[in-house]
């Protein structure tokens, strides 16, 4: 028997044995990951040479790395050679009408109040609904173009704005950053690209939801946002509707560059399939999100994480420029057998930099919910300030909540404040609300949303209302 290492090196050094050209004709790459597969993906997407080189370099580095397991997460090792890294959408397998869609999903759509046409689009029914969104998206795009704002898929950006992509891709999250970042850099499928020119305030909330094909960005999504000097943009990722995907592994990267005096707000509602109530199935969401703040820049991350079986995600801010500001507002809700290990990193490098962390973890069922954060004040960061507040709410007595804040301060003028609480929904609170006519689910939803209010307030209005409803739905049946 060969050792793993030998097998791996055989694999890496295996001579090129598939006819590269013939593969291009097919819609699907064979299982597994190799240089050939990466060349195949790159060719399929008609990518320039530099991007192929970027991917290959990332791949080679990935081979030297081990899957990280420091998170408070337990799952079966992922067999990377049994995954498909490129597949054109399979037309035959999409449902022909809503009658073919899982009634459980339809019920949730209904509760969220999603219009029928949109339900069809979300469930992947191949219908006219797409045409609606094409027209919406087109109007939207024309409007943005007037301001010089670029908002397109990353593949289009590679084709149309190669200098921008080449300059910034991997500049905040280098391909060597971590195991999943290396994997994503090697095989990323698609994602969003945003550029806000100098001095421009983006007049609308940019939503990945409105970008055509965003829903089919695949399992290795890549987002790159550049806010030039004195610009502003609010970006929304995801939607509250439950999303199913055949791919169990999702390893995305989001990179944000906030130039001098610019501000970026990035809001996420993540509702990937969490698995069934016995913990079977569900998405592994292993994400690297990071932003770089230049002088006087501000970056706010707001996330509402309710989906996925496994969440491994730490949206971070590198506060490089003087007076820059980083914010992280998070609600992570786990139910049944979900596991979330999420938090942030605030790296203070510039003078007078400040950061705020507000994390609300809600655990129900048999789930495990961990806040993991790092606040680091570098020797150069004179007068840096951080305020962190981490609250956990437990529903039932079979779940777990954990808080792991790490603070490193290398400048004596630094001020770090940390506060943490853990509480439970009491029988008295539930009874009080029920005695006013709320059923148990409404009562739990209201109390949990009250607990999350500080974070929910940071979401754009419409998103916030949907997110509140979503939290109620996700907790259904958690008491009893």
């Amino acid at each position, binding site marked *: 028997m060969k050792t793993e290492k030998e097998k791996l090196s055989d694999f890496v050094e295996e001579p090129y044995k598939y006819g590269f050209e013939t593969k291009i004709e097919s819609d699907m790459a064979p299982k597994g990951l190799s240089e050939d597969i990466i060349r195949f993906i790159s060719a399929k997407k008609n990518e320039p040479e530099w991007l192929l080189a970027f991917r290959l370099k990332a791949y080679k580095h990935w081979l030297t790395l081990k899957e990280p397991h420091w998170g408070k997460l337990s799952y079966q090792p992922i067999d990377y050679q049994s995954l498909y890294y490129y597949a054109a959408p399979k037309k035959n397998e999409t449902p022909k009408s809503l009658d073919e869609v899982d009634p459980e999903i339809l019920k949730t759509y209904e509760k969220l109040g999603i219009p029928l046409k949109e339900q069809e689009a979300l469930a992947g029914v191949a219908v006219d609904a797409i045409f609606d969104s094409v027209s919406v998206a087109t109007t939207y795009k024309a409007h943005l173009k007037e301001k010089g704002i670029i908002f397109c898929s990353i593949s289009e950006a590679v084709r149309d704005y190669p200098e921008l992509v080449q300059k910034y891709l991997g500049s905040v999250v280098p391909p060597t950053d971590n195991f999943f970042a290396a994997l994503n850099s090697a095989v990323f499928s698609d994602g969003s690209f945003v550029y806000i020119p100098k001095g421009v305030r983006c007049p609308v909330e940019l939503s990945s939801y409105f970008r055509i094909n965003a829903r089919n960005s695949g399992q290795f999504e890549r987002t790159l946002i550049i806010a030039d000097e004195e610009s502003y943009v609010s970006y929304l990722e995801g939607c509250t509707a439950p999303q199913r995907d055949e791919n169990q592994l999702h390893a995305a990267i989001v990179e944000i560059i906030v130039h001098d005096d610019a501000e970026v707000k990035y809001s996420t509602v993540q509702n990937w399939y969490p698995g069934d109530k016995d913990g079977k199935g569900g998405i592994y969401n292993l994400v690297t999100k990071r932003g770089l703040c230049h002088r006087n820049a501000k970056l706010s991350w707001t996330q509402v994480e309710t989906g996925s079986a496994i969440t491994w995600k730490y949206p971070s801010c590198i506060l490089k420029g003087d007076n820059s500001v980083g914010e992280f507002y998070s609600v992570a809700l786990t139910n049944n057998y979900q596991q979330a290990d999420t938090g942030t990193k605030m790296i203070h490098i510039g003078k007078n930099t400040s950061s705020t962390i507000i994390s609300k973890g809600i655990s129900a069922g048999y789930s495990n919910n961990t806040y993991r954060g790092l606040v680091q004040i570098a020797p150069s960061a004179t007068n840096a300030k951080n305020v962190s507040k981490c609250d956990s709410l437990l529903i039932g007595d079979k779940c777990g909540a954990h808080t792991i804040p790490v603070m490193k301060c290398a400048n004596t003028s630094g001020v770090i404040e940390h506060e943490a609480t853990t509480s439970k929904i009491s029988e008295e609170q539930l009874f*009080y609300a029920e005695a006013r*006519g709320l*059923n148990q689910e409404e009562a739990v939803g*209201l109390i949990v*949303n*009250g*607990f999350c209010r500080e974070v929910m307030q940071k979401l754009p209005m419409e998103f916030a209302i949907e997110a509140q409803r979503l939290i109620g739905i996700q907790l259904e049946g958690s008491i009893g």
Partner: protein
Amino acid sequence: MSFLEIKGLHASVGEKEILKGVDLTVNAGEVHVIMGPNGSGKSTLSNVIAGHPAYHVTSGSIFFKGKDLLAMTPDERANTGVFLAFQTPTELPGVGTALFLKTALNAKKKFLGEKPLDAVQFMKRLKTRAQALGVTDEMLKRAVNVGFSGGEKKRMETFQMAFLEPDFCILDEMDSGLDIDALKTVGDGINVLREPHRSFLMITHFQRLLEYVVPDYIHIMIDGKIVRSGDKTLAEQLEERGYEEFK
């Protein structure tokens, strides 16, 4: 058909029996008062009527407007018209009072198959009732019962009752911890709600609330049973002689 009819009610917390056979009939429009020493089961009775999960009914029945209350969940009881003003209202951090009341009212409307109030109708109803009870806008913006003084909490309970317009109001020691002014406000709030279709069950230790809200009947509860019923003069006797002679 009686408005509220309790027959042979026995209830326990854990292993301990607290109600040991309560019989009580309340007709529409009446105000009943239950008085009794500490630990006699007064608060247990109000919690059992409202459906608190910690209390277990071991035998007996409660019928409200002809419906079997014990077969209903607490929210169904509330939406059928039962209201419990709590002795010590619980705090709901982060849950705005206005939002809470809107959710409660619309839950009731939904239960009764009525249309929910729109934002304008809701605000109008909220403001009118709030003003009558001296509940300020600032209080409505606070989270439910968070940062309220004892007196403010009682006033909010009375206000919630006025807002939700229940048919059967249980007031669990509304007078405890209130000064004379607050007592008068709460008393006025109750009197305004006295109507032919609405009844009250007030639980109290003291006679002083009865100076503001004049009851039709007074019941004395001792050791889980109603041992004596009478009109308002019973309270006066009690004031003079204490519970000893009723034991």
